[in-house]
Structure formats: C-alpha cells, structure tokens
C-alpha cells in the first residue's frame, strides 16, 4: 500500500489540472502578450484564473499577480514593499516560525539596513497579539505573519492581527504567507485588513512553479523582476499560461467542497493524533484541536531519530517528512520547533504527517498499524 502523507511538501495534481495543462501546452500554446489570435486565446486563460481566484478571495482581479510560486511571492512582498516604502520607515516585523522564504529575505533586508523584530510563539506555535501590538512603532512599514505554520500546523490569528496593526499604525502594511493555509481555510484579505497574500500552486494540487501574490490596489510596491513589462510592469516575464490556468483550476476545485473537506480532514487528523498518543513517549507538537490546521500533524517519537523513522515508514510505503533535518555531520535545527521550546531530544525525533483531500481513513489506519509495528522494533536499537 502506498500512503502519501507529505502533502505539505507538495501534492499530487488534480487530474483535471493535468489535462487542462496538457491541452493548453498542446493547443493554446500562444504567448499571452502576442497580438494575434493565439495570444488572445492564451490570455483568456489568465483572465479566467484571475477571476476565479479573485472571486474566492473577494478581491479585485487586478489585485492578483502571478509568480513562480510561494518563495517568489514572499520575496517580492517583503523586498518590494520595503524598497517602495523605506522613506516612511525601516522597521519590519515578522515571527520566529516563518518559512525560510520569509526569514532569509528578512536577513537580506537586515543587511541592507532594515530593522527586523521577530515575534515569539507559545508552546503551540502561536503568536501573542499583545506582543504584536507592542512591537508596532511609528516607523514600522510592514508586518509579515504566516497563516498556517508548515511544520506544526499552528493557525495564526491573522483576522485579528490585521485589525490590531491598522489600529496601531494605519500606514503599516500587512503581508500573510498563506502557502499552507490557502485551500484549507477561508481567507478574506479585505475583511481582515490584509494587504498582501502569498500563495503557491503545488500545495493545492496545482502545477509546480506557479503561485500568486495578492496585492491590495492601495499598496505601494516595487517589482523585483524587471523585463518586458508583463502584468502591468509589476512582474515581467512571459506569463506561464498553462501553469496559471492549472493554478486557477486547482483553486476552483479545492474551494468547491472546502467546508466538507476540511471537516473530513479534521476527523482524520483526530484519528491520527489519538492513534499516535497510544504509543509511549510521543509528543504532538502544535495544536491538536481546530486552532491547528486540518492537514498537519507533527509528532515527536522519543528515542527514534526522524530520519530512521522516515525511512522505516518509507519501507512500508508510507511517505512522511522529517520534522527537522538532522544528521551526525550537520545540525540544522528547526526554527519553528526551537522557537516553541522543544528539547533537542524531541526535536531530533520529530516527523510530520501532512494530509490532503485524497487521504483516506484506511490510509491513516494503515499508517498507525505500521507505526505500532516499527516503533518497538526501532526503540530496541538506539545510540548508546
């Protein structure tokens, strides 16, 4: 049996997405900027995707800009906003548990003279709104907070955060990295006072190399990619028409039954968590209830290094990811897990299960069965 539980790394594409992408690459292969009919045909797909996404997020079509994925969207939001607004201030705020696409970009901005504040998180990986309020200064130009943490699934209170940011400093921009939350939870930027949102296509059963950045029309931002002036000059480069069409299709499909799907995922998650807790010395990282995302379960199985657990499960056809990459040669400690105050012993033995709409109850049962078999065996052999 093959059980793919690494959907936070990437997902299998919807069959409808695959056929649409293949069809466009074969037949409607024109350059959306060409003046002839082939170009016009191609452009229709861009418009359709924009309309789909804008409709679901209740924003304007012209506020959606297509990118190469989550990393580019994050880089653009941070650098583009910082460079366009540096005269109003040089202070940025983010959290300690962001994706590297945010953290490394912030480090780069720091080298360029910006001042960065990192918000801490509690043991469940959630920020404190009080700490956020106190961190905002008159010269704060941007706050960036992720929607759902990729390692432990903690949902951040971004709906309330927007209100607090705008109350404290109306000029401060608010960016949300929604790569892990989009498609799983409702996201309403206008209502929640969010100025920018990053989304990636391949996390929602769309094609890799696709994504978008929502930018509120009032936001002052600079491009980070220059060239032929596509997308109103904000993001140059020939539009990835098949990719964008696939992204639009995936968005449409994942939101079609979102309420039921999310409910089903929470049930599966509950089953997995309670099954995991039947094993001795297992710690679930992050929220176990509905304050956590429906599709992510991070578990530390004391005494078994994550890499070993991962490969043992792989042997049984179950694909998961190591919560924090670790080996005797190189120690890369997870930013999120250490910010949550996890001890090294647990950190080295953390694995992440991430579910998708394709995950079945049978697959969860099989996974648990494998764990019950493997854990006692692997615990016999530990480094003494």
């Amino acid at each position, binding site marked *: 049996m093959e059980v793919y539980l690494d959907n936070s790394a990437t997902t299998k594409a919807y069959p409808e997405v695959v056929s649409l992408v293949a069809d466009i690459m074969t037949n409607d292969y024109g350059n959306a900027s060409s003046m002839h009919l082939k170009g016009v045909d191609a452009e229709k797909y861009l418009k359709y995707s924009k309309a789909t996404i804008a409709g679901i997020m209740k924003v304007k079509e012209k506020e959606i800009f297509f990118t190469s994925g989550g990393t580019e969207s994050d880089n653009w939001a941070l650098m583009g906003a910082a460079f366009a607004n540096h005269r109003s201030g040089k202070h940025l705020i983010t959290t300690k548990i962001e994706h590297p696409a945010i953290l490394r970009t912030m480090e780069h901005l720091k080298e360029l003279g910006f001042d960065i504040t990192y918000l801490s998180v509690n043991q469940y990986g959630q920020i404190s709104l009080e700490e956020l309020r106190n961190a905002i200064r008159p010269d704060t130009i941007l706050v960036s907070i992720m929607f759902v943490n990729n390692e432990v699934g903690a949902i951040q209170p971004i709906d309330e955060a927007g209100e607090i940011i705008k109350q404290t400093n109306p000029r401060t921009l608010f960016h949300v990295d929604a790569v892990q939350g989009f498609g799983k939870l409702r996201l309403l930027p206008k209502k929640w006072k969010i100025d920018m949102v990053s989304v990636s296509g391949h996390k929602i059963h769309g094609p890799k190399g696709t994504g978008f950045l929502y930018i509120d029309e009032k936001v002052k931002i600079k491009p980070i990619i220059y060239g032929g002036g596509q997308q109103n000059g904000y993001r140059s480069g020939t539009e990835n028409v098949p990719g964008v069409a696939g992204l639009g299709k995936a968005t449409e499909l994942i939101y079609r039954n979102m309420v039921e799907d999310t409910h089903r995922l929470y049930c599966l998650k509950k089953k997995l968590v309670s099954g995991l807790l039947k094993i001795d010395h297992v710690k679930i990282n992050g929220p176990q209830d509905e304050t956590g995302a429906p599709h992510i379960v991070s578990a530390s199985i004391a005494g078994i290094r994550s*890499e*070993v*657990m*991962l*490969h*043992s499960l*792989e*042997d049984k056809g179950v694909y998961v990811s190591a919560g924090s990459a670790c*080996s*005797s*040669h*190189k120690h890369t400690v997870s930013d999120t897990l250490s910010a949550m105050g996890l001890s090294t012993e647990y950190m080295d033995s953390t694995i992440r299960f991430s579910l998708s709409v394709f995950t079945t109850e049978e697959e969860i049962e099989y996974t648990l069965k494998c764990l019950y078999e493997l854990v006692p065996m692997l615990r*016999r*052999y530990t*480094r*003494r």
Partner: protein
Amino acid sequence: MFTAFLIKYAEIGVKGKNRYIFEEALVRQIEFALSKIDGQFKTRRTQGRIYIDAVSAFDFDETVTALQKVFGISGICPVVYVEDEGFEKLGKDVINFIDNVYPDKHKTFKVCTRRARKNYPKSSMEVNADLGGVILDAFPDMKVDVHNPDVELNVEIREKIYIYSEVIPGPGGMPVGTGGKAMLLLSGGIDSPVAGYMISKRGVTLEAVYFHAPPYTSERAKQKVVDLAKYVSEYSGPLKLHVINFTDIQLYIYEKCPHDELTIIMRRYMMRIAEMIAKENDCLGLVTGESIGQVASQTMQALMATNEVCTLPVYRPLIAFDKQDIVDISEKINTYETSILPFEDCCTIFVAKHPVTKPNVNVIRQHEQNVFDKIDEMIETALQTREIIEVK
C-alpha cells in the same frame, strides 16, 4: 588548428617483451575515453608512438580533459600536420605555428627534427639549423638555447610533416587492464574513492562493495556512493558496485557484542564479506581508504584487528597520507563535493561515544564468538540479496 595528438607514455617504454600488452591496453583505454566525447578520432600505433588523428571537428579542451583521465599517458602533445611542399613552405608553416601558439615572443627555443623519411633533401641537423634561422629572422625577440629552451619545437618528417612543441601533462600511471582486479570498499566518505583512484592508476581494474543499512542509512546515501563510483569509473573504466544490505548483521552485532568494540567487529565482518565477493569475482586484493590514526578504527592496533580476518592482501594506498593531502586529490578527481554531502553512513550510526582505540585482538576474537550462532547464515543472506549496479 591542431588536428592530432601525440601521446607520450613513461613506464611502458621499459617493459621489454611485454611492451605490446601495455601499448594495446593504452590504445584501448584511449579509444574508450574518446568514444564518450564529441568528434571522431583514429588511434594508431607506429614506431613506438601513439597518434590520435581527428577525422572530424572536435573540441580541443574536452579532448584534452578526456585524455588526462587515461592512466598510462604521461604527456599529450597537440600536433599540426602540414603537407611537404618544399622547405620554403615548411618555414612559413613553422612561423605560423609559433605565432599562434606563443603570442609572447620573449622565449628561448631550439628545433628538434626527426626524419622518418630518409630521402628528405636535408639532413635533420640541416633542418634544425635552417629552421632556426627562419625563426630568428621572423621573430627578433626569440633566442636560441639548445640546453634549456622554453620552447622545444619538434618537427617530424614523415609522409606529412608533423609540428608540435607543447607537452600537456597526462595522469601518468599504467593503463587500466594491465594490473589485475581489486575489490574496493567504498563508504561514501572522502578517502575510499581516492584510494580507488590511486590503485586504478597502477593499471588495476576495480570492483566495489558498499554496505547499506536501511532504514538507518537513506536511499540518498546509496545514491551518493553510486555517484562516487561514477567519478572513480571515469578513471578506472566501468565497474561493478555490489551493494550489501548490512542492517541485520549490524543490529545483531550491536545486540551481542560490547558496544565500544562494535565498530571493530563490524569492520571485521565487512572485510570478510568483501573478501568473499572479491574471490568470487577473481579479484587479487582488497582496497581501503584507511590512513593510520585518522579515526579510532584506523589505529595500528585496530588495523591489525581488521586485517587478520583477510587472506587476500589489503591495499591501503592512503596509509601514510594526511587528511589534507587526501582532500587535495579528491578535489582533483571531483569526488570531494559529493563525499561531504551530509548523509549518515553505516559506520557512524551506532558508533559508541568512546570506541576502543587500541583493541586487543584476543579480546575481540573472544567477543566475536557471541555472534557465531547466526552470523554465517546472515552473511549468506546478505550475499544472496545483494544488489549489483553496473557503474559506467
């Protein structure tokens, strides 16, 4: 401009009546190396020399790089062929050659002529002197030095006239295929690929064995070893990689033997298994990347303890090398970047915090008896279930 290469070889020249065996092996290795790059070449062996003629367009740098990986070659001379259309034309060709190859003319030179075609109107000495004159007239900055010249211009008069001056150093050594076969214990670290390269340089063909311990070592760790074997095979030629699943044996030793002796006992079994595969495949020895004192299992005492289980000779070309010297070679043969990828290998997973550094062979032998119950059966299974990867 160059259309051919003259291949110089060092040690083969002294091989007496066996010389043809070495030359034929060298030609075979050259042809194999050239078959993998763009361009068509013809290799010929005449009068104790090997010439490579390009019969189509080719990339000079790519060709030289490929030849620099052929053991047995001591020097590669890029050659220009010109038609014999009288001495005056030859003078012009030589001027042209020097102008192209040496933009800076502040050099000393001498001309060395050889006549294979003895009916050429001038003697070798006359050609030397006359061409020297032509060069001095054309380039006033150049000076003659017959003892220690910067440029030794070689002119060979055959059916055509060959002109060459530069000798690009080759890798040296002996052609692969002239020295028997050995079994390399490949770990994924820095040392073992270098050891393989060095043994192969003496003309030895290689096979390799890797001990895989899933799930403790990952598929990527195995891929890393395959990649390393591929780099080594660029020099040694295609090789067979035997991948042994070592997990059960390792866990069994772990359960039955004192923990601080785990690495030594494990290595003794690795050597035993490697020797079994070696004998089965007509290998005449084992090769390891060990170097005295580098780690706990490579002290003199530990080496003695692992060595005693083998009947075949164990070749350890790096035995007296410092780590940095090994790293230098691994960078030269392009294995370094791959070797340092951070995947756990089978030697490190259960390693004790304080392994024995001076094992007593008698004690080790005694403790090893704890595994005698099942170990033979497990070795048999490991040999039966091994995966063989053809690396080329």
